[in-house]
């Protein structure tokens, strides 16, 4: 049996990669993927704890997160396409109309 800490460390690494990608990447698609990566790191924590404590609620919560993430992906990609159509770029630094 793989101990709980392994899962948690993996999850932390994944989450750190997500944060790092989110912070340093300029391409919206990459940022979006980084967000997905963070979500899945959290999901991994949920299932790891659920297996460790032998309760079901963690698993159920993961399904919820997946559903929301799927919905979010649909909306987010639609937004990205709309942004690309109007501004012809995927660079977030160029999408700054609201900036002072």
């Amino acid at each position, binding site marked *: 049996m793989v101990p709980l800490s392994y899962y948690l460390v993996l999850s932390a690494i994944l989450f750190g990669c997500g*944060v790092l990608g*989110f*912070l*340093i990447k300029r391409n919206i698609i990459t*940022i979006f993927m980084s967000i997905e990566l963070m979500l899945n790191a959290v999901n991994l924590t949920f299932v790891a704890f659920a297996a460790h404590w032998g309760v079901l609620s963690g698993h159920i919560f993961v399904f919820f997160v997946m559903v929301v993430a799927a919905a979010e992906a649909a909306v987010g990609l639609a937004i990205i396409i709309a942004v690309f159509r109007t501004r012809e770029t995927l660079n*977030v*630094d160029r*999408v*700054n109309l*609201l*900036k*002072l």
Partner: protein
Amino acid sequence: MRSLNLWIIPLLPALGAAINGLLGKRFSKRMVNIVALGSTASAFAYALWVALQFRALETVPHIETYATWLRSGQFSVEYGFYLDQLSLVMLLVVTGVGFLIHVYSVAYMEHEGGYYRFFSYMNLFMFFMLTLVMANNYLLMFVGWEGVGLCSYLLIGFFFLRDSAANAGKKAFIVNRIGDFGFLIALFLLIKHFGTLQYNGVFEAVAGMPAETAGAGLLTAIGLLMFVGATGKSAQVPLYVWLPDAMEGPTPVSALIHAATMVTAGVYMVARSNAIFSRAPEALMVVAIIGCLTAIFAATIGLVQTDIKRVLAYSTVSQLGYMFLACGVAAYTAGVFHLMTHAFFKALLFLGAGSVIHALGGEQDMRRMGGLRKKIPYTFWVVTAGTIAIAGIPPLAGFVSKDEILWKTWQYSKVLWAIGAITAFLTSFYMFRLWFLTFFGERRGAEGAEHAGHGHSAPASGHGHHAGEPHESPMIMIVPLIILAILSIVGGWVGWPHALGGNNHFETFLSPVVGASAEMHGGAEHAPAHPASTAAAAEHEPAHGERSMELMLTLASVGIAALGFFLAYLFYYKNPALPKRMAEAAGGLYRTVLNKYYVDELYGALFVRPIVLGSTKILWRGIDATLIDGTINQSAEGAQEASDTLRRMQSGNIRSYAAWVTAGAACVIAYMVWRGLR
């Protein structure tokens, strides 16, 4: 107890004011007249009916309470009316004279703008004045007191396009505020010490207190503060300055508000509070001295004024001084009696002067009048009646009331009597001067005033187009004048003194109001200096010596009046060049009196200028502009600067936001880890 529904009386003019004020703009003049005259006439008729019912009343004072107005703990003020002999007299004077003046105004104001506005204000004034005289507590009286002040302001400034009128209105209002301040403090003292403002409550509480003969105390303080209010409203020294300027208003206003009714409110208040004043001899003494001073002071100014309305204004101030003199020597009935007769003859004189002004197309300067006797005979005869009445020649009204005041004053103090007698002489002189200048000699026209230099020429607006040959006023103006003339002649007979074979019904009638207080202070026997007790004693046992003394004094005052007439005859009819020569001989003194003793200038330098300067320099520029505005502006600028700095955080760069979020999350996690480790 049967209710007389006294509330109807003030309500009628209030309705008239509301209807004319709200809808009058769309009414024809005829409709405005119907509303204004109808409301005052019905108020007068109802007052007459009340007077007829008065004898049948079981209890006097008859108090009607309609509602509780204020309630605060133990203290409560009712909304109710108080009818006794004193308020009945005031009620009849206010509604009667008020109605006559309304009738007169119909013709006088016909060519003026704001016709409906004028009548609305006049009716509103009647409402407040009736509230003042009928209230059953001091607070309701104060409402009327302030209300008449408001109407006075509105009507003085009626021709508000003229700067002098607007300023005169403001002056009247502000000077009255000073007096009202004293009145208000008196009310607070009453609340604090007696816990009530109802007349009967206060008078009952006061009745149990001894006269403050040994030293000034609470009652003296209350009396003096009330008198401060009275000096403002009734134009006594030192607050009289507003009344002469109030002549900027239309003449009927001068007659109604600034001669017959409102300015006598102070006398009414003192007479109403006689229970308090009678127990405060020092306050009474101040009242008497101030009244006496005002009487002679204003009379001397009246001697040299050239504006016909200003002569009458100073005469009013002087006569009000007489009323306070009477109150001050505890002869309240004499004061109220003079109030009534003065209302008749002074309203008559003002309206007569208005008729003269009307006839001359707005001319108010007596130096440009003259020779009007034949041109406007009706006006001449009624003004003659008024002049003789005020000059104190028997058997007209002014003689009876003034003589009674002088007689009561004689019993109190010989010095005050002497000043009062000199004032009577001056009154007779300046009134006959007015009479001769206006009606006798030749019409002097415009050239008469040129050499005099200092002239107060305030052209009454609207009358200008009448210029030309003097013409008699229409009948609707003459009829009220004739009625007032008759009242000025016979009005005094109700109080014909005992010494002349009369029985002074008026004093007997009013005695329950003031007599009650005279007998209430039972301790007065061992206070021989007390004026009320000596006067009362003199009334009850008219010793033979006293009677002949009174006759002597009567003869003396008639002689004084005749002397005034004779001198005026000499100066202004026989030898018209004489006054000018005398004025030149008197030089500085004459100029001082002509300029009203420079009192306005003195007040300007002492109070008005420092206040204006202090307000602009310290309060406005210093405190308001620098401190208050400065604080606000500084804090606004500080907020702007701070937000300008904080704004930089909102860079609009998504990744920097994300970094903030991450940093925040890291902080929270670090904190929780630290908590967990501990």
